[in-house]
């Protein structure tokens, strides 16, 4: 089925408004935009392809059924990810983690050097997935992979903004500790302006 070309330039919120008015084509455009993102979110939680596909499908079905409840003055993504998160929780409640989950990637000998080499951050994500608790990883994922602000993450995770900031802080603290191997010298004083200025 070819997606409507006109709908491709429409914002998520406008598509949601059209879906509220009963347009299935608009909702299909939303599915096309968010399918991979919801799948990635679910796959990070369940680490199992079949579960992630089921969660993705259930999320969109639930979103379609509940689209009238979406407040179109707000952003669509946090609302959708809030549904996805609930579906992930339901799935975890009903099924223990799958035994045939793909094996974890081996830990890195030297994460700091690896990070320096890898510009795309993929390995840092792997490190985060391995070492962070669910809630911290989700907050980090929504912050960076979905480019959400703490207020939007709070809506998606059903937490307060302060709780989200604490989750992000703890996640960064853990990652910093993993990157900070023993014996590594602190940043030289003459160079620290560079990274402080980046903050």
């Amino acid at each position, binding site marked *: 089925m070819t997606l409507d070309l006109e709908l491709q330039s429409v914002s998520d919120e406008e598509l949601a408004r059209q879906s509220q008015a009963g347009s299935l084509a608009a909702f299909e455009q939303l599915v096309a935009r968010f399918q991979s993102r919801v799948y990635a979110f679910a796959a990070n939680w369940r680490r199992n392809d079949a579960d992630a596909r089921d969660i993705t499908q259930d999320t969109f079905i639930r979103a379609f059924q509940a689209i009238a409840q979406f407040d179109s003055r707000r952003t669509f993504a946090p609302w959708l990810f809030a549904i996805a998160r609930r579906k992930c929780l339901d799935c975890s409640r009903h099924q223990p983690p799958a035994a045939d989950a793909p094996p974890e990637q081996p830990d890195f000998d030297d994460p700091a050097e690896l990070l320096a080499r890898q*510009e795309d951050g993929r390995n840092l994500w792997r490190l985060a997935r391995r070492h962070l608790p669910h809630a911290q990883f989700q907050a980090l994922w929504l912050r960076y992979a979905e480019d959400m602000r703490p207020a939007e993450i709070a809506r998606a995770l059903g937490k307060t903004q302060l709780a989200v900031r604490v989750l992000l802080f703890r996640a960064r603290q853990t990652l910093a500790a993993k990157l900070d191997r023993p014996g590594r010298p602190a940043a030289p004083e003459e160079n620290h302006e560079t990274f402080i200025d980046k903050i």
Partner: protein
Amino acid sequence: MKHLLTKFRISNALDSGRPLPRALQEKIRRCPELRRFAQDAAEAHRALRSPPTLPPADEALRRSIMRALRATAAPSPSARPSTVAWLAPASVFAALALACVWLAVRRPPPVPVPATRGGPQTLAAADRMLDLGGEMSRTMPSAVVAPLSNELACVDLDLRNAARFVLATLP
């Protein structure tokens, strides 16, 4: 635990995009631990900002989702669940209000409670108790009372004790 709050502020600054206050920057410059944390957090921030590789859109999954969506009923703009959600608590509230009104109308007049301890009403109650004990043994036929005499004696004793207690409470 050391410098926890400062580290939290560094982390917050990464999310807000606002520069750190001068004093805080000075503090970071002076402390190697804070400097290292700020450096690692900034490195991680930069690395994580590059979008992770998402799986390619799975056409089969999309078709499966759309098939399931068509199978479910289309959302009806007229039957907004928000209206239904509003109606449910409103009807419960109305039912509760009606129940309260009904109870208020049906409630019998309250039994007058003696306002003070002791007084003529307490004396009358004690008197009635004593009379009741004596009357029971007098008025009941002996055939009925005979097998229950012990129990009646106990009841009579209890009533006397109760009367004594009530009288003792008198000022």
